[in-house]
């Protein structure tokens, strides 16, 4: 089976990761997954404001995911929405297990994710970018986080859904994976599928995440070992 864009079912979209794209951020990264582009900037660890939200003995990870008004075909209303707030929370939960937050008591680590161009899979692109940006900022981590969305179209398992595929697919299953621990930190699921299929899909997703992980490491290497 060939997909709309000529990929094989288990193929990722052309993936390009660049670290250190923002000058004023402590660490930053840009991820291009096909036509989806995400830019992540990490600031800090820095002083936590408001003070009353400081956590004793650990840092607070603050994520903000936003889609640019010009990122979609139809103009998106600028500013946070219900959807972006939810995804911000989901991204934070996906990244948190990878970071040694206890190394920076009372501090805050700010992660800003901006989607410049959206063609589905924005949260996964955002997580990929954020994890590279965190490593680039020198934040102590247990490992990088890689993420990809998988689905099932016409009875076939497909990796990294793009554009219309998201609507064609029986389900949309974004997975964030910590390749070092072999653990999953994000698993969302839209649609309905038998248990067996879900297990297969998760396996496929983790395999794709390993691939992404290698590219993330290469991007960091390129940035620092010029």
């Amino acid at each position, binding site marked *: 089976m060939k997909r709309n864009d000529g990929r094989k079912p288990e193929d990722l979209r052309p993936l390009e990761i660049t670290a250190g794209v923002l000058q004023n951020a402590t660490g930053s990264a840009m991820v291009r997954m096909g036509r989806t582009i995400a830019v992540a900037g990490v600031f800090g660890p820095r002083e936590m404001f408001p003070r009353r939200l400081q956590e004793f003995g650990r840092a607070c990870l603050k994520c903000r995911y936003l889609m640019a008004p010009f990122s979609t075909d139809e103009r998106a209303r600028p500013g946070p929405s219900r959807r972006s707030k939810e995804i911000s929370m989901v991204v934070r939960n996906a990244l948190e297990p990878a970071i040694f937050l206890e190394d920076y008591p009372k501090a805050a680590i700010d992660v800003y994710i901006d989607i410049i161009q959206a063609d589905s899979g924005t949260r996964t692109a955002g997580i990929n970018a954020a994890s590279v940006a965190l490593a*680039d*900022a020198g934040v102590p*981590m*247990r490992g990088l986080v890689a993420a990809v969305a998988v689905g099932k179209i016409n009875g076939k398992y497909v990796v990294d859904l793009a554009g219309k595929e998201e609507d064609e697919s029986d389900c949309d299953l974004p997975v964030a994976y910590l390749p070092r621990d072999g653990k999953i930190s994000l698993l969302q699921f839209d649609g309905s599928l038998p248990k067996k299929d879900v297990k297969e899909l998760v396996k496929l997703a983790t395999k794709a995440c390993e691939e992404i992980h290698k590219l993330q490491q290469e991007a960091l290497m390129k940035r620092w070992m010029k």
Partner: protein
Amino acid sequence: MEKLLKHERDFVTPGDKIVESMEFLPGRNCFRDGDSIYAKKLGLVIVEGRVLSVIPLNGVYMPSRDDMVIGEVTDVQSNGWVIDIRCPYQAYLPLSGVRGFIDSSKTDISRIYDVGDIIYGKIKMVNSSMSVHISMYDRICRKFSGGRLVSVNPAKVPRIIGKSGSMIDMIKTKTGCRIVVGQNGLMWLEGEKESFAIQIIRLIEEKSHMGGLTNEVEKILARGVIDEKK
């Protein structure tokens, strides 16, 4: 002994396995999980006997006791000053950290240090709730007047200083500048060739991961100009 998966001066990203053995110990910026030692930060591997550590390439400054830092006074309070030392926590310089007796009820302490002043102090205490206290008791501590303040990556400060101060001493003597380096990544320079000195520091910052940097810097200093083409 088990063979190392990463060797001295190898580049590692967080989560990279350095060795799978209980014969080694995790040092700075490394952690143990099960039998293996992994890198915690992005950086270069350093092997010192049985201890494995990683020199970070980027990161913010974390205050620790006895560090010499440069900071800006951001607030004057009734019995001390609040200092910004470019770290996730505010530092405090109490009146007891300044030489001599000062009666805070009779003197306006903003005449000693005022908001906006740049000072060079020593970190006297950092406790578990991350309250940082600075002291100006040391003889080398002072308030700066004039000169220029430069911010560099705190992770690169050891490289700028060099082994027992070799690099910074060379820059000081060859450019004739007075230079003070704070562990927190702030530098103060004063002298005729301060722009040139800053250019050199930027070069060291950029090429910090390379070997033979001291020789290269020595050549540039002898030449007196930075070759732009390179």
